[in-house]
């Protein structure tokens, strides 16, 4: 029996409708999970895995 934290307090997962989704691109891989109770969103968590960020390039000037 899994317990889910919701806006109604802790609830048994079996009482809720579970919806999941994901997003994947060059910047991130994101997943989320939602729990709904009688048409109302009562829990939503998201997990973003950052893949990379642009590097800052440095340069030393020439006297030439």
């Amino acid at each position, binding site marked *: 029996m899994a317990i889910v*934290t*919701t*806006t109604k307090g802790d609830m048994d997962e079996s009482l809720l409708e579970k919806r999941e989704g994901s*997003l994947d*691109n060059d*910047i*991130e891989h*994101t997943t*989320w*999970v*939602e729990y709904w109770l009688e048409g109302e*969103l*009562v*829990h*939503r*968590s*998201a*997990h*973003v*895995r*950052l*893949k*990379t*960020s642009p*590097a*800052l*390039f*440095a*340069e*030393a000037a*020439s006297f030439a």
Partner: protein
Amino acid sequence: MANTQSMTTSFMGDLLVGAQQLGTVTLTSRGSLTSPTTDTVKAALYLASATVNASTTAYSATGEVTGTNYTAGGVTVTNATAPTSTNSSTTAGVAYWTPSASITYTNVTLTTAFDAVLLYNSSQSNKSISVHTFGSQTVTAGTFTLTMPSNTTSTALIRLATT
């Protein structure tokens, strides 16, 4: 052998740890000059409607998310791995750093869409470090987790590079 023009890779690494100072600056004491303590990095979330970018100089509550169990200023970033620098050739190298653990906001409700996190130095007048964006999110009585990329020369969260 020949000499080659380049900013040294170790200098970039020194910038990340504050080991070199080419001008005067007012700092909050880091304990001592010879064995300074590591500054505290924090992570604040910003609304999709906010404006945080390269010109952001310090943390501000303007545009920051608000909601249940979210404290203004965000959370402290786990920083157990010091910045590293490495050469890839005689002319190129990378200095890089990544937080050593995921950034987690636990049991929060953030109903207005947010899409950015600002890393900033709470030990040094909340000076900004970097802004990272992601797909717009909301959280309801749940957890928002930012998992860091691998701490490598090509994927680390913050990279200073010469080519």
